[in-house]
């Protein structure tokens, strides 16, 4: 398995190796998809509580004492020290904006709506 650069990537890679979509994974394990999505994208730090980390490891099929377990713990520890940035760069926002979209009843979004949409995307990336 390729080494993931951070906890979120590692988490996502393991989940996908189980053949589970984000929603399936969350449904089976009682997790919130919004939170797990943010964790996987590095927008939330790994949990600091040992019990929670163990719960995630179990859900990902990672057994204590294995190489994957060590990597999971290492990445959780190193990533936990990095607080996700509060300020999102314009580039990140640009990458996450919609290009082709159609709204309900085909109403155009005006300047005010578009600025509000940009703010929402920015908040989503925090």
């Amino acid at each position, binding site marked *: 398995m390729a080494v993931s650069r951070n906890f979120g990537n590692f988490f996502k890679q393991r989940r996908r190796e189980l053949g589970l979509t984000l929603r399936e994974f969350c449904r089976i394990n009682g997790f919130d998809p919004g939170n797990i999505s943010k964790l996987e994208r590095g927008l939330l730090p790994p949990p600091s509580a040992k019990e929670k980390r163990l719960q995630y490891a179990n859900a990902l099929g990672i057994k204590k004492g294995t190489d994957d377990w060590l990597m999971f713990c290492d990445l959780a520890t190193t990533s936990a020290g990095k607080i996700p940035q509060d300020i999102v760069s314009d580039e990140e926002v*640009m990458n996450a904006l919609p290009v082709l979209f159609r709204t309900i009843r085909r109403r155009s979004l005006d300047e005010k709506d*578009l600025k509000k949409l940009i703010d929402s995307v920015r908040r989503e990336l925090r």
Partner: protein
Amino acid sequence: MTLEIPYLTYSDIGKRAQDFLSEYHSSLELPIPIEAIIDVKMGLDIVPFPNLYKDFGLSGYLSSDRTAIYVDEIQSDQYEEKYRYTLAHELGHYVLHKSCYEELPFRSPDEYVEWRESITNEEISWFETHGDWFAGYVLVPSCHLETVCHNVIAKHKTTFAKFKKIPEDFWSYVSNEVATYFEVNPPVVEIRIKKESIPTKIQIIG
């Protein structure tokens, strides 16, 4: 700057959808696992986005860097068929409109607003139609549609035998049941039935 609209026929898009399914779901087993294809097989993020529909009237969208599909959180939680359709529609943009995403002219939020305001609804509607056609083809593959319609009609044979002529809304009713096999909303099937000329291929009376 206007968008370069690729002219694609319904059958062009059908071919692209078939090619896509051959690559990512060659068994064609129903229902098409669109979410698993996108998330697990293709490695695109599917991101639940709170209030996307409520605040902006958007069901979902493909991000400008083509790495994620954002979907209204309530839809992804509660409206399975609509959710599947949104994913397939956005996947259509991913597959069909790559070049459009490669030439985006905005570099800042202000430029984005200016650019998006300059795009007319007419221009956008071409792309959206492509997305709708692609979603219909991928979720309701041609190779299954006729067979499923045939089976549903055969199931209700005794009821239909009483008809002297086919009621106008007959295929709308059939679509309701056929849609359950594909896990889509009935209008998706109704359009596919029309586009594939299924009414001319299946004998109902006699």
